[in-house]
């Protein structure tokens, strides 16, 4: 089993990177958020290596003794993460630029719709009206009066006593 004793120097560096990263991520300015994310990324990458075990020799077969090598798997993962961070940096910067173009600042604003809902909830108002569940002013009788089917209502005629006979003639 490889030596897994953690390295204090790295642990302190990780802690500081995370603290500074979080401090910046909680900002509203998109460029500061981005810088914070990059710091967090660096911290996470170091954390990966620490979790992989103690420092060793480069994992290249033939060049080094295999027992002295550092763990290659976290390295492969971190390598992926580094390049992804580059892609994300570019994307967020493009967003910051676009935000500047549109609003002349790069701050992440609060969602307007969420604020509207919060404002309405505070005064117990509806964000929208749903006529299908609201209480009605109509009584049951009046509603029943309106609820007429589309029926085949035959022909309206004068009332006559001997009509039962003629029902059959009228029936379609």
């Amino acid at each position, binding site marked *: *089993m490889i030596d*897994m*004793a*953690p*390295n204090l120097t*790295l642990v*302190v560096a*990780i802690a500081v*990177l995370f*603290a*500074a990263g979080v401090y910046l991520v*909680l*900002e*509203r*300015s998109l*460029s*500061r958020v981005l810088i914070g994310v*990059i710091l967090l990324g*660096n911290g996470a990458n*170091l*954390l990966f290596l*620490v979790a992989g075990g103690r420092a060793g020799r480069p994992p290249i077969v033939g060049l080094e003794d295999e027992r002295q*090598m550092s763990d*290659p*798997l976290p*390295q*492969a*993962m*971190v390598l*992926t993460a*580094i*390049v992804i961070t580059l892609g994300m*940096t570019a*994307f967020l*910067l*493009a967003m910051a*630029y*676009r935000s500047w173009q549109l609003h*002349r600042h790069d701050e*992440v604003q609060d*969602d307007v719709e*969420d*604020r509207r*809902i*919060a404002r309405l909830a505070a005064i117990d108002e509806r964000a929208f009206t749903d*006529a299908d569940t609201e*209480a009605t002013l*109509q*009584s*049951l009788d009046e509603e029943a009066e309106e609820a007429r*089917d*589309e*029926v*085949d*209502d*035959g022909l309206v*005629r004068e009332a006559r*006593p001997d009509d*039962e006979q003629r029902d059959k003639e009228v*029936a379609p």
Partner: protein
Amino acid sequence: MLLLLLVHLAAALVAPTLVRLWGRKAFWVLAAAPASAAVWALSWTSQVQRGDGPVQSVEWIPALGLELTFRLDTLAWLMTLVVGGVGALVLVYCAAYFSVSAQGLGRFGGVFVAFAGAMLGLVTSDDMILMFIFWELTTVTSYLLIGHYSDRKASRRAAMQAIVITTAGGLAMLVGVVLLGEAAGTYRLSEVVAHPPGGAAATAAIACLLAGAATKSALLPFHFWLPAAMAAPTPVSAYLHAAAMVKAGVYLVARFAPAFSQHELWRWIIVVLGCGTLLLGGYRALRQHDLKLVLAFGTVSQLGLITLLVGLGTRATALAGLAMLGAHAMFKATLFLVVGVIDAATGTRDLRRLSGVGRELKLTALAGALGTASMIGLPPFAGYVAKEAGLEAIEHLEDNAVGLIVLVSVAIGSVLTVAYGLRLWWGAFATKKAVVPESAIAHEAVATQADGARSPGSTSRVATQPDAEPAAISHPSLLLVWPAMILGVLGLAVALLPQLGEHLLDPYADTLGLGEPGHLALWAGFTPTFALTLVILGAGAALFAVRERIETLQARLTYRGPDADRIYRRFMRRLDDVAADVTAATQRGSLPLYVGLVLVVFVVGVGASLLVGGAWPDDVRVFDHPAQLVFAGATIASAVLVARARRRLKAVILLGIGGYAVAGLFLLQGAPDLALTQVLTETVTLVVFVLVLRRIPPYFSDRPLVASRWLRLAIGLAVGLTVAGIALVAPSARIHAPVTEHFAEEAVGWGGGKNIVNVTLVDIRAWDTMGEISVLLVAATGVASLVFLSRRTGQIFRARDAAPERAVWAGADPMAALRRGTDQARIDAPTTNREWLRAGSTLAPQRRSVIFEVVVRLLFHTMVVYSVFLLFSGHNQPGGGFAAGLVTGIALTVRYLAGGRYELGEAAPVQPGVLLGTGLFLSAGVGLGGLLVGGSVLRSWIVDLHLPLLGDVHLVTSLFFDIGVYLVVVGLVLDILRSLGAELDRRAEIGEDPPFDGTLPSLEEGASR
């Protein structure tokens, strides 16, 4: 039985087509589906009576123990007859009831048959989960049927109310079913009923099941959805709200009564709900003016009675309950159908407007009379036989106190039934001395709308006027009368053979095994029960005689307290409010708040488990290599300074320094690949930042709140400490040998490479890499889209297309003071013929630097060659596609920085999209290639060739994968340079997007005001 269900399903599916083809005549064909169910049940009658009805079981989801199990016993047989028989008759009725031009008939027919099928499945299924599924299917289809006129508000409201209430009950029932199934160890209905579990689980299950039954069968306090559901077309009311769906709850009670009827909770719920519903429904029915509403409240009342009878749990009550169930299905469906005829003939169902209908429509009046007679329990009708048996059975209940309460309630309820039954027939068919004019009713409606404070269920009284014209009467098709007539006559016919009914229904009653067996009889002598019946009929008739006064009294007693309907509305309103409050509380729309919340949860969750269960390491090391202290120190210092920086450029440069220091830490940890890649990305990142920072203000905007800064610092420190805890605990938490133990042999043997990290990327974990380059492609596309907006690509700037003014990066020259001579002199100076870069002459003269151009000229090709070397050697030494791509990217960056956008176009005259696409295609293609030659996806093949000049060539197919990675990375960098570099330059030159001029727009606005 499965076949019958499939017949229903098929009929439901073809119904819209049939109706489109044949119009309303298609209902004749659709009626065949429920009719077949009824005929099928009839054909099994004798076997069912003997107790060996058919059982069918088909495996459905064996992993969950779900089976399609169906069983036809006496209870199911009766319900199938009701569901199938009434369903078929109502469908035939529909063929003449709706006008030819009525809207949505196809959908109506389909949903109606689907409902019949769901109902059939519900009553025959022998698996509790299956039963629940059919139960919910009836809920959904009934929602669609009640809301048939979806353009009417009242219909939608009624449908919504019905589905909310019945699904709430359905959910409770599901809980009950699961509790019961788990406690009994089986979900087979017949087995659970035969061997019911006991204890707390059973008690809870009873409460849940009865909640389901109460909502479905419109018992107190959920009764109000049924009258509102009268907004449905009348055939739907006749079927769902008289015969079928509302009986589902009764069916559930009857199904579980043999198991639980002696349970204390069961008894009390049944007695209280049954009696309460019986009395309330009857009372409310007395003063309704709409015939359908009279019937609806009457149904509520009758459902209370039937639930009471089947729930009480003696043999005699069970027999009477089942008889009542059948009788009610017949007479109530008859009456609804009759009301439909009246509606069609007169255009109204308001009994105050009707007069002389009986004289005009004699057959209809006769059918109505048959139904009414059965309903009020007049001999010799089915209702009478059932009610007699019920009264007789209740008199013989063992528990005297409860028995007395039930007897009195049923007697009063029956009196009310007689009264509203007579009033119904009188109101519908009698020739009255005076009616209410139509205008008065319209006027009343307007008045109540203005008033507004009325209870939704209340009605007001309008005086009759002797000279008012009653509603005109027409003669609808006789076809409308026959279904009602058949059901009415059937109600008389079965009553004439009471012994047959007893014989057929007894097998169910015997399952209860408590008390004496009951009997169905037309004439049992002058018993106390018969005397009671006479009293009931007399009192009911008396009540009918004084109906005017009762209406007045009820109107005066208008109940202003909490009414179930209003409580429901208020509850729904409160629910919406609570939902809005919760949304408002959690969904603040603020990014820092969300992120902060996530982080606090992380700190609390992970931190707590670290403190409680973390295994702290026995042994720590301060450093592996002294140089780590230097690099870690640089990392820490730069991180702290970055967090404090107010100037963007300062922050970015510090960030870069920190990044390089991290690369040093990687190197010392034994990860040269990482260090190389980190240095390269850090460089590209720096350039990208600077490209964008040209356009936005040099300082971060100020945050006004100091308090929030301390809070952010606190969260940051907490997260930092928590992560440090993880870093300390995680390494020693390892309990297995790492998976990478054999990576070395595998890398050489299978991957054909010595650099394990690279082989891991392109072979062992190639799927990860594939995903990653896809992300890069998306990110690159995103960058391009955010800048170019309407198109994916911009033009490629070639030097020959450049304008002759040499204007790239023109504008103020910050270094002018340091130069000799004026800019003008430099611009006018003759240019030499020697050009180090192809597009050098497109630059504004003051932006050119000969030294930079020369260095770039010398360096560019070297860098590209080096990157190719990294790419090819990466399999065995540090390097690989990522590093190579980044080196090429930096080479392009340098060309751009030295010569502007035309130089970039000259250096890489391709669209980045082409590079990205080719790269991904190549990587994926190699992966698929492995599949084609017989291996698994992304498998590498090693080819050793001996070429004449080059010597031995060791070729691994994953090299092409790596080339794909290389192309994607180059594409990403090129995309960044072209959008954030070249395109922004172009815009600045044509004045479209001026660089930041030192003033914030908000300040400008303030000044101009």
